[in-house]
C-alpha cells in the first residue's frame, strides 16, 4: 500500500517541482521519509563529512599539527606526484592489472552463471555454487599464504609435481609476466563465484514463458541462451560494467600487497600500495590524499563517460 502511494507521488514529482505538493507528499509518507533519514545520516557522516579531509592534498599537513593549522601549499604535491617516475609506473601497473581483471574477470561470472543455470541436477547445482563462492570469504592474506605454498618455484606443491613428472619448474609468482597471469587467475578464482549471484538472480527474473515459446519454435539450448538468457540479463551486465569501469583506477590494497614480492615489484606495485608506502608510512598524508583525489576524479569521469555511452546505446545507464 505504501509502496504504491510513494511511486505515484514520485511520478507526480517528476512533472515539476511544487513546494505544496512536495510537502503534502512528505506528510503522506512521513514514516517512509523518516526511514530514509537513517541512510542519509550514514551517508553524510561517512561519505560527505570525511571529504573535508580532501584539503589535506593542498596543505603541508604533518601531525601533531592539526589540518586547520597546516600551511597551504597549493598544487605543489600534485606537481611532485606528476613529475615522479614511480607514480607513472604504479599508474601503469594499476591500469594493466585492473584492465586485465576487467577483460577476463568481468565475463567470468556471466559465463559461470549461465553454466550453473543450465545444470539440471539440483543438488549438484547447489553444491557447486557453494563451493564456487567459498573463496570469496577467505581474506587475501590467507589466499596469498596458500598460493605461495602451492606455487613457489622450488618448494611449491605444483612445481614439485611438475619437476617430478620431468618438467621444468614454472616461476608462477617470481617472474614478472607470469606473476601478472597468476595474479589475474587467482583473482578470478576468488571472486567469480560470488559474482554469479547477481546474474543468477537476474536470470531467475526472466519470464519462463519465453523459454517455453522458444522450445515450441524449436530452439536448442545454445539458441535459448543466446536469444533469451543473455538479452534478459543485459541491463544487469551493463550496470555492473559501468560500476566496474569506475573501479579501474581504484585498486584493492590487500590483493597486490599480499601477492606481490620483491622480485616482481616492477609489476606488482600499484596505486594502493604506493599510497600506503609513500603516503601513510612516510607520514606524507598530503601525497596520499592527492593520489586518492586523483583516483576518485578519474573514476568518476570514467563512470560518467560510460554512462553517457550506455544511454546513447539505449541501455538506460545507471543514472
Amino acid at each position, binding site marked *: *500500500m505504501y509502496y504504491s502511494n510513494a511511486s505515484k507521488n514520485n511520478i507526480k514529482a517528476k512533472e515539476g517541482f511544487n513546494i505544496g505538493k512536495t510537502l503534502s507528499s512528505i506528510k503522506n509518507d512521513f*514514516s517512509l521519509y*523518516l*526511514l530514509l*533519514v*537513517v541512510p542519509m*545520516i*550514514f551517508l553524510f*557522516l561517512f561519505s560527505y563529512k570525511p571529504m573535508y579531509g580532501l584539503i589535506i592534498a593542498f596543505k603541508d599537513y*604533518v*601531525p*601533531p*599539527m592539526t589540518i586547520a593549522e597546516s600551511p597551504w601549499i597549493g598544487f605543489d604535491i600534485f606537481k611532485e606526484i606528476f613529475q615522479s*617516475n*614511480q607514480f607513472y609506473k604504479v599508474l601503469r601497473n594499476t591500469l594493466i592489472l585492473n584492465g586485465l581483471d576487467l577483460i577476463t574477470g568481468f565475463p567470468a561470472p556471466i559465463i559461470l552463471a549461465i553454466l550453473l543455470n543450465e545444470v539440471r541436477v539440483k543438488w549438484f547445482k547447489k553444491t557447486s555454487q557453494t563451493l564456487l563462492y567459498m573463496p570469496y570469504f577467505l581474506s587475501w592474506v590467507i589466499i596469498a599464504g596458500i598460493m*605461495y605454498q602451492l606455487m*613457489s*618455484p*622450488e*618448494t611449491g606443491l605444483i612445481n614439485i609435481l611438475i619437476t617430478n613428472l620431468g618438467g621444468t619448474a614454472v616461476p608462477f*609468482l*617470481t617472474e614478472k609476466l607470469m606473476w601478472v597471469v597468476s595474479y589475474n587467475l587467482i583473482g578470478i578464482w576468488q571472486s567469480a563465484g560470488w559474482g554469479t549471484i547477481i546474474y543468477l538472480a537476474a536470470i531467475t527474473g526472466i519470464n519462463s514463458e519465453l523459454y517455453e515459446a522458444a522450445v515450441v519454435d524449436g530452439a536448442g539450448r545454445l539458441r535459448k541462451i543466446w536469444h533469451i538468457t543473455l538479452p534478459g540479463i543485459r541491463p544487469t551486465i551493463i550496470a555492473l560494467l559501468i560500476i566496474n569501469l569506475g573501479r579501474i583506477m581504484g585498486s584493492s590494497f590487500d590483493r597486490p600487497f599480499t601477492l606481490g*614480492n*620483491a*622480485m616482481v*615489484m*616492477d609489476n606488482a*606495485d600499484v596505486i594502493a600500495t604506493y599510497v600506503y*608506502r*609513500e603516503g*601513510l*608510512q*612516510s*607520514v*606524507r*598524508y598530503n601525497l596520499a590524499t592527492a593520489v586518492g583525489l586523483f583516483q576518485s576524479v578519474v573514476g568518476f569521469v570514467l563512470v560518467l563517460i560510460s554512462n553517457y555511452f550506455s544511454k546513447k546505446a539505449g541501455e538506460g545507464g545507471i543514472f
Partner: protein
Amino acid sequence: MKSFKIKVTSMLLVSVLLIGSLAGCGGGNKKAEEQKPQAQETKTDKPSGEAVEIKIPVYERGNQGQPPAENNYWTKWIAEKALKDINVKVTYVPIPRTTDIDKFNMLLAANQAPDVIFSFDYPVMTAFYGRGVLQEIPKDMLKSVAPNFVKFVGEETLKYGEVGGKQYYLTAKRPLSYTPYTAIIRQDWLDAVGMKNPTNTDEFIAVMKAFKEKDPGKLGAKNTIPMSYSLKAAKSQVQNYGFRPDPLPEEELAMYSDVQLGALTWAPEKERLKFLNQLYLEGLMSSEWALDKDNKKAEADFMSGKAGIFHFATGPMASNPPIAQTLVKNVPTAKLSVLDFGWQTKPGNKNTGRDYWPFGIMSGINKSCKNPEAVLKFFDWMSKPEILNVLQNGVEGKNYTLKDGVPVPVAGFKGEESLLNGTGKDIWCLVTEGKDTGDPVQNLKVETIQRAPAGFEYLWQQSFDQMSKQKRYPDFLFDKPVTSTTKYVKALDAKWEESLAKVIMAKKGEFDATYDKACKDYLAAGYQEILAEKKKLYDEMKAKK
C-alpha cells in the same frame, strides 16, 4: 486501525534506528567520559592529591605463548605500585615492534599517542624532534623531579639526549654494549667435512661448497641448504663492514652507515652483493630467500636440520623463538657454533663491526603531554633499585632463586609472574638495556643466564668473544634531523628489497649491469637527495668545530 498500528510500529522502529546510529556517532566522546569517573574512583583511596594518568608505550613482539604486552601481571603490578608510591596512574599502549614508527605516526595523527615516544634508533628520534612532536625537558626539572634516574643513567649518557644544548630525549643506560645478532653454524657438519670455521669470504665459499658436495647431513645433495637465508637477513643494513676500508674516513661513515637505509650505491655494499650473488649462483644459499620476508622459512629449514647456517635476522639470539633447542630435538647429533664474524670479510680486510652508542632506548616526551613531571617521576621511580630489581628478576622463590647473590632464573617457570619474553626487558628498557653489576664480566654472566637459550649459553660467550676481537664503529650522529630520510625512507626500503632481489639473483655476467641499473633507480627514488642533505649537514658540523 490496522494502518495506524503499522504506522506506530514503523515510527518506533525508525526511532530505534535513529537513536542507534546517533549513539554510534557519539561513541568516541562517551567512552572518554566513562573513563574519567574511573580515574576519579581510584583517586578516592589515595592519600594525597589527584592521581595523574600517564600513557607509556610498550613493544608488542607478537611472540607465541606470551600475554599481551600492555596487559599482564607486570603492567598491573606497575600500575598498582606506582599509584601507591608516586601517585601516578600508568596505562600501557602496545606498539608492534616491527612497525613501531608507523604505529606512533598513526597515533600522533589521531591525537592518541602515548605521553612517551621512544625508539632505539637515533635518526628516528631526531625525525620526531624535527617534526615538533617532542617537548623540551627542562634540565632543572629533570634534576629536581628525577634525581634517581639522573644518577642511575649518568649525566654523561644523558648528554646524548640533548639537541642544541637542550634535553629532548631521556636516554637509557647501556651497561653492556653487546647484543648477539649473530649467525650459527652446524659444528657437526664442519667436523664431518674436516674444515674450520671460515674467517673470510674465500674460506666461507669453500666451506659452503663442501657442505653442498659432501652432504654431511646425509640429506641428499639436493635437499641440503648450505646457508639458510632470507630477504630479512639480506636486508639488514649494516652488514658491509667486512668490505669497508679500515680506517674508514669519518665522512663515509656519516654518509653511508645507516641502520635505516641500505647503502646500495656504496662500493663496500657492491662487494657484499657480489659475494652474495656468487653464493646464489652456485646454489649455496636458500634458493627462495627473496620470498622469505620474515626469516620464517629460514628458521624452519634450520630447525628441521636441512641447513648449515642460520642468521638471527629478526632479533638477537634468545630463548624465544627456540631455534637451537628445536634443532637439537629434531637432530640429536647436531652441534652448534657461532659463525665466525669474519665470514663476510674480504680476505686481507680487518674484521670490523658496528658498535652501540653508550645509551639504550631514547624516550621523548610527547608535546601534547600535560604532565611531563609525572612522566619524569615514573622514570625516576623505575630506576630505583628496589623497583628495577623486581622488574628485572621477578619474584624471589617463583621466578628465581639467589645463588651467591646472583639471581638464577627457575628453569621452566610458567606462572603468571613470568617475565615478558623471558626478560621483561620491554618494560624496563626505558631506563636501562641490561643489568648492571658494575663489572663487565659479571654483567655478561648475568645477561647470559637470563637471556641465552637454556643449554646454549656457550653460544652467547662465543659470540661475545668474536665481538671483542672486532674493531667496532658506532654510527655517526648528526646534530640535526636528516629531513629527507623521513620523507623517502619507506620508498627506499621497498626499493632496497627490490634491488637486493634483482642484484643478488642477477644471472652470470649480468651482475654489473643489473647493479648499475638498480643504483640509478635507487638514487632517483630519493637516495640522491638524502646523500646531498647528509653531506651538507656533515660539512656544516665540521665547519662549526
